């Protein structure tokens, strides 16, 4: 097990190394000149040269590459071109908002999709199963950025007024300031007993998290359904039937436990999907997280921020997947060395 973890960490480090190297050399050949971006659209004479010196762009490329790697190892991603703030500071500031949103939406999609998957597996080929299938088709085909905007429209007119932007009503920052404990608004407000903020942040997270959850619903339904169907075809279920155990007991006592084991791996994949989806969802709902920041950075050619957030996203996904793999080996004793049986 220890060997497996070390192997995984080495692999992730290697992937990140290749990624940072590729992005570094891409930035060297990219049409956008960082020095020109740094000084703005109308530089005075000598300003571009000064910026080149400041950013170290006057040095040869291999020296720059070594400096760049050294800085990355120290957790220094450089300064944002747009805000002139250290990128690491921005990462810290927006990190928790994204984690909060992604976690809540992963939980929502599991709560909705797993029961649907189990139910349609039991009602295979019946009307409910066909409805579930149509639902799945819609789930994978709907563009979530469009879904988000449509929900915003509905929120104004048909369904009850839910906030469509931000993480908290802006007035609450003055009337009920939230004490920062963990950085997760939902948890902090409970810990400090700040119920006004709790209500507001709960209301704010509904639309973005539901939008994000929608993207992975179909995937979870399909995986759960096929896993349950596979288990229901196992010999031990047939044996249980032969013993005259009620269908209800067979389903929810014997099939359920084994059928849901593979769903654990789904969580890791869905989390990664949602991290990627945060770029679209956060930009639509103006959610102050890393996804929105990377979108701003793309619009403004702010390369240090883009690289920084990419690295953080990759690390989050790899960590979650590692945890999921370890959990899997704990839950399913058949998997002795976790990951070997997981493709």
């Amino acid at each position: 097990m220890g060997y497996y973890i070390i192997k995984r960490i080495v692999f992730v480090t290697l992937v990140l190394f290749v990624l940072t190297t590729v992005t570094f050399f891409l930035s060297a050949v990219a049409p956008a000149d960082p020095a020109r971006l740094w000084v703005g659209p109308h530089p005075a004479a000598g300003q571009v040269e000064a910026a080149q010196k400041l950013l170290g762009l006057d040095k040869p490329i291999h020296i720059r590459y070594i400096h760049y790697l050294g800085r990355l190892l120290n957790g220094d991603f450089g300064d944002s071109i747009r805000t002139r703030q250290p990128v690491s500071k921005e990462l810290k500031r927006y990190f928790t908002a994204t984690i909060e949103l992604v976690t809540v939406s992963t939980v929502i999609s599991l709560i909705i999709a797993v029961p649907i998957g189990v139910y349609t597996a039991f009602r295979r080929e019946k009307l409910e199963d066909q409805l579930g299938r149509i639902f799945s088709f819609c789930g994978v085909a709907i563009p979530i950025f469009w879904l988000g905007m449509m929900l915003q429209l509905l929120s104004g007119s048909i369904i009850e007024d839910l906030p469509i932007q931000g993480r908290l009503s802006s007035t609450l920052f003055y009337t009920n300031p939230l004490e920062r404990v963990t950085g997760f608004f939902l948890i902090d407000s409970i810990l400090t007993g700040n119920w006004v903020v709790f209500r507001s942040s709960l209301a704010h997270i509904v639309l973005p998290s539901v939008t994000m959850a929608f993207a992975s619903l179909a995937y979870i339904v399909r995986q759960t359904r096929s896993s349950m169907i596979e288990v229901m075809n196992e010999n031990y279920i047939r044996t249980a039937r032969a013993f005259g155990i009620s269908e209800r007991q067979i389903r929810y006592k014997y099939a359920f436990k084994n059928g849901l084991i593979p769903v654990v791996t789904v969580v890791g994949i869905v989390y990664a999907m949602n991290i990627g989806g945060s770029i679209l969802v956060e930009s639509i709902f103006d959610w102050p997280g890393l996804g929105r920041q990377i979108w701003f950075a793309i619009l403004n050619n702010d390369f240090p921020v883009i690289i920084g957030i990419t690295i953080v996203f990759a690390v989050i996904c790899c960590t979650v997947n590692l945890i999921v793999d370890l959990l899997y080996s704990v839950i399913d004793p058949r998997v002795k060395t976790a990951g070997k049986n997981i493709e």
Partner: protein
Amino acid sequence: MKIDTTINEISENPKWEKTKYYLYLISKNRLFMLGLIITLLLIAVAVLAPWIATHPGDAFGDINLSARLKPPSSDYLMGTDNFGRDIFSRLVYGTRLSILAGVCIVLIALIIGVPLGLIAGYYGGKVDEIIMRICDGFLSFPYLLLPIVIGAYFKGSLNIDMMVVNMLVLGLIWWPWYVRILRAQVLIVREHLYIEAAKAIGVKDSTIIISHVIANSIGPLSVQVSLDVGYAILASASLSFIGIGATPPTAEWGYMVSASRPYFHDFWWTTFFPGLAIFLAVIAFNLLGDGLREIFDPKTR
């Protein structure tokens, strides 16, 4: 007499029997037929765009400020956008770009992924290990993140069309899936006795791969390709929405949704129809792929 002999010939032709059987399965699969019809309609719209569009010029940068943000009417079937351009006509022309993007992305992925998958599966060992670890590396990134990062570096360049960048970066992250499919297929086929026999009589590796392995992979491959064309259309539109893709005044679905953002709260049609077009296209290719899966894979039937 003559009729009798033709019937005999047909029934003795196993290939025709097989084709007939598949045609029968296809005609019985209602969801597949629905997907096929929508897909053919979309292709027809793409080809016949100049004749279907009511205001063809609006897809190429005509501006008509007097007709700004008009609701859907008989003149403007889906209303107009903030430049007074007919949304219906722009959507019709956008079909071309979206289908082209979907097909190109999958094509790039196939060109890279299929040979690598064959090599990995057929030769095994170190080569296999290296190729599969590279795939894992690509797949360990969250959805769309890699194309966004790479695409962002080409933004602001005047000599490259961003839509080309959009397709290239998506194709370049899509291939690992095909490596996996092909490799799995090779591993299955390799165990067959006839491959051993072919090897024993000295058939060349390349001939075995092409005539046996690829022929056996057509089923699963066609399922994945038709599903992926849909997903690629969605991914391409998503990338355009973020700003890595079509630039004004190009009529592209994802960009149209993104351009409508300042107006959609008061003028719903500016967002609704472009998004619906994406939805429809993706669902069509999905139905097609799912139908093919049922036809080729007896287990799911």
